[in-house]
């Protein structure tokens, strides 16, 4: 009984924190239509800021609390509304994803710079952890505060939304911002208010959570992601349902940890919210078939066979040439760059062409590395390579089956939940705590791969071949089918295409590429551990692909190498920028807005140059009629064929 009661108390407290998190998410989603992935990171920064004022600078706790929750957090909310969120009004889901994921990385990076993670900090509970014994159970005042704060906020929000004019207006915004504007409401004001409110609530949740969990940047950010499950249970709209879901998750988690004996079952407790999130996403009714595209912008033209062959040869030859002058660590850095580029290439296929978002590519990479290590053995037999590809492909296939019907935000959340489950339960179980796995480099008969230099060249060959293959696929009949399915699933279905099967094949192929990348990735350092495949890295991969350009091979190569070479740049950067998460975040919310990324800009520049030089293109006018009765359209003519039109 005592055990039951004490776990009920902890479970309720966890549930309350999840409820707070879900509430903040639902508020901004409903008033602005943006699902804020960075919500957890805001909570984490809130907890650290509180620590700084209270423990760091010795402010009294209540004053520090007011400062963080009622002053700094709302200001931060105002700031991100103006800088990041307002320009997103009416933007496609993929852009809101990139921006909020970028903000998440930025905040993680910022926190790592300000509060050095290698230093241990401790955020005590309120009232020194004192409490009152009720029957058998000690209930701390901290826990009482957490529950009371949640209840108070829930009641306050209910009153706000149901009785005040502002609150009713807030509910109306998401349904029809323009209508509200006409009726004299002020959407901007209301959106500002909702970002202030949700930042405040997030900061409070972080402050309440940190003493119960641990003051750790990544842990807090991910724990808060658990609250997303509750928000999804409420279908991002229904607050009472979200709160109920939060309580169920919190209680379920702690009952399991209380009664389970086996180590692996205990581990399950951390992934329950993710499993719930995943399950709810699968059960949620999805939209009917309709147009939905991740990239949304005019993609650069796909390189032809000759161009891509030349590009591949130049890449490999260039790598050979450069590798002769590189030292061991630099050779490994470059090899790592190609492994990462292969991961990004799998996103080019999946997301750039197929419009499906995945935030779990590193999980497939991890499976590849593990299979190579276990099956390939010390000699690095080629069977290991096959096993790596096969295992990753199998996992991709199994993940794709239930998620096929999901799109945009839901698919992003489901894949992230998948990555988090592997991160927190499966990989830790496989490697053991603090353990690792040795991975031999593949041993190809007749070709030396043992030296760092030879291995780098091998990596460049694998990447170049994969890139040429992906481009050839895109130009061929299957590639056309994939692009068509992305452009209009509805039209494809009415033309006899089994849309789900097409997606399944591509998802599996993309996972298989990650498995191959896992072989290279493991071969670089010859040893991997659970941290090598953290869920956060999958998120980094998606953003890097977007920064470099998610629809050109040059783009993904650029994205991968800017990140991989970071340790090389690091000594030359000013301190306040010396964090790769921070820089990736900044790049994502700036360059990443354009789906064609850096690669697209390069392609655009090349096109401009050709035009300036007057190479084989001229404008012609063709008589056509259109809706508004204009009688001519202007086309670009190339070698006697019309290639693009403006009107």
């Amino acid at each position, binding site marked *: 009984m005592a055990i039951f009661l004490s776990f009920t108390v902890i479970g309720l407290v966890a549930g309350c924190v999840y409820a707070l998190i879900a509430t903040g998410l639902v508020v901004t989603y409903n008033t602005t239509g943006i699902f804020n992935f960075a919500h957890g990171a805001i909570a984490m920064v809130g907890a650290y800021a509180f620590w700084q004022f209270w423990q760091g600078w010795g402010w009294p706790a209540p004053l520090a609390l007011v400062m963080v929750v009622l002053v700094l957090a709302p200001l931060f909310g105002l700031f991100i509304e103006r800088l990041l969120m307002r320009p997103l009004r009416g933007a496609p889901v993929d852009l809101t994803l990139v921006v909020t994921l970028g903000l998440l990385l930025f905040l993680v990076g910022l926190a790592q710079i300000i509060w050095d993670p290698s230093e241990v900090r401790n955020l005590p509970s309120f009232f020194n952890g004192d409490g009152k014994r009720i029957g058998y159970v000690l209930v701390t005042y901290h826990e009482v505060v957490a529950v009371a704060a949640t209840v108070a906020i829930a009641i306050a929000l209910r009153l706000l939304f149901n009785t005040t004019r502002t609150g009713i207006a807030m509910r109306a915004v998401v349904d029809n911002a323009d209508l509200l504007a006409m009726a004299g409401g002020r959407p901007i004001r209301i959106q500002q208010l909702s970002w202030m409110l949700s930042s405040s609530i997030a900061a409070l949740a972080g402050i309440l959570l940190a003493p119960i969990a641990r003051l750790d940047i990544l842990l807090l950010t991910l724990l808060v992601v658990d609250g997303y499950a509750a928000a999804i249970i409420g279908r991002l709209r229904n607050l009472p349902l979200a709160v109920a879901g939060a309580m169920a998750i919190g209680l379920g988690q702690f009952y399991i940890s209380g009664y389970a004996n086996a180590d692996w079952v205990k581990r399950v407790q951390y992934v329950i919210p993710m499993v719930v999130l995943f399950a709810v996403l699968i059960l949620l009714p999805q939209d009917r*078939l309709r147009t939905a595209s991740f990239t949304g912008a005019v993609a650069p033209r796909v390189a032809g066979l000759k161009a891509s062959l030349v590009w591949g040869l130049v890449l490999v030859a260039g790598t050979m040439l450069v590798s002769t002058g590189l030292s061991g660590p630099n050779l490994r850095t470059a090899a790592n760059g190609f492994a990462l580029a292969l991961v990004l290439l799998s996103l080019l296929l999946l997301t750039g062409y197929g419009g499906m978002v995945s935030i779990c590519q590193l999980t497939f990479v991890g499976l590849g590395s593990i299979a190579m290590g276990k099956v390939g053995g010390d000699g690095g037999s080629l069977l290991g390579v096959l096993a790596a590809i096969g295992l990753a492909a199998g996992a991709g296939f199994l993940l794709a089956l239930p998620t096929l019907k999901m799109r945009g935000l839901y698919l992003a959340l489901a894949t992230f939940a998948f990555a988090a489950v592997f991160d927190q339960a499966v990989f830790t179980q496989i490697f053991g705590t603090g353990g690792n796995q040795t991975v031999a480099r593949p041993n190809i008969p007749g070709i030396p791969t043992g030296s760092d230099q030879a291995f780098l060249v091998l990596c460049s060959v694998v990447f170049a071949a994969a890139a040429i293959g992906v481009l050839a696929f895109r130009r061929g*009949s299957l590639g056309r089918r994939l692009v068509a399915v992305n452009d209009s699933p509805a039209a494809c279905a009415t033309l*006899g295409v089994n849309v789900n099967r097409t997606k399944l094949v591509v998802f599996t192929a993309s996972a298989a590429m990650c498995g191959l990348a896992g072989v290279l990735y493991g071969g670089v350092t010859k040893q991997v551990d659970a941290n090598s495949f953290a869920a956060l890295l999958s998120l980094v991969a998606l953003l890097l692909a977007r920064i470099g350009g998610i629809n050109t091979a040059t783009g993904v190569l650029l994205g991968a190498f800017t990140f991989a070479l970071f340790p090389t740049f690091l000594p030359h950067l000013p301190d306040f920028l010396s964090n790769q998460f921070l820089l990736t975040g900044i790049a994502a919310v700036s360059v990443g807005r354009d789906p064609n990324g850096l690669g697209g800009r390069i392609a655009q520049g090349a096109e401009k140059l050709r035009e300036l030089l007057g190479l084989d293109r001229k404008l012609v006018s063709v008589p056509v009629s259109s809706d508004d009765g204009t009688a001519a359209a202007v086309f670009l003519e190339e070698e006697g064929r019309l290639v693009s039109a403006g009107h």
Partner: protein
Amino acid sequence: MSAPATEFAAPAGTERRDPHAVVEVVDVSVNFGGIAALTDVRLSAREGQITGLIGPNGAGKTTLFNVITGLQEPTHGRVWFGDRDVSGLPPYKRARRGVARTFQRLEVFGSLTVFENVLAAAEFRRSWSNDDTPARTVAAEIIRRVGLSVVADARVDSLPTGLARLVELGRALATRPRLLLLDEVGSGLSHEETEALGDLMVDLTRDGTAILLVEHDVELVMRVCDRIFVLDFGRIIATGTPAQVQKDPAVQAAYLGAAPESRGGPS
């Protein structure tokens, strides 16, 4: 080719089917959260004929197309292709039974060229039929037939709406359908282009293709249709030859007689 008028009006409430029908919907109703978009609709289209489906904005024409192609599950009712009940089949299986359509709200493959749009559809057909005519040959012929040769290599998302609709038509034709559903394919076209489109439709029916045509251009509808169904507020209010429908008092009251502005006008 037109049959006597008495044959059109199926007795209400029975399951008897039109024996000449390539497609027949029987007592189909669709509700969107309490709003009835279609109520007990019964309609058929016949081989080698152009069947018109007209009605004011919001009458439920597009919804009916969605029901036939399987994109919208009806609340009630069945859909037959020939003598086969396809009500439970997903859209792609229905397409493989010979139904193709165009979309009123464009659903083109915007990042492909005009030629590639049609080529993709021809390749789709090759993948599920046993017709092995090279897809490129089929695509080239269709591009010529719908008059898109001059813009064949332009990306579709850069085309004016009128031309994009023709791309949808070409794409649908590339699957060699036995039943073609056209949802306002003529809007955005000039007078001459509309004429040509009408001729093309008539031409298609010569090979036995059945066409179900939704069109706001009354002149075109009256010229090419063998039979017309009139839909108003989700119900069929009249059926018959163009001449019969034009004279029908209910139709005049609901549609032809009413000033277009008062119903929102053609879209």
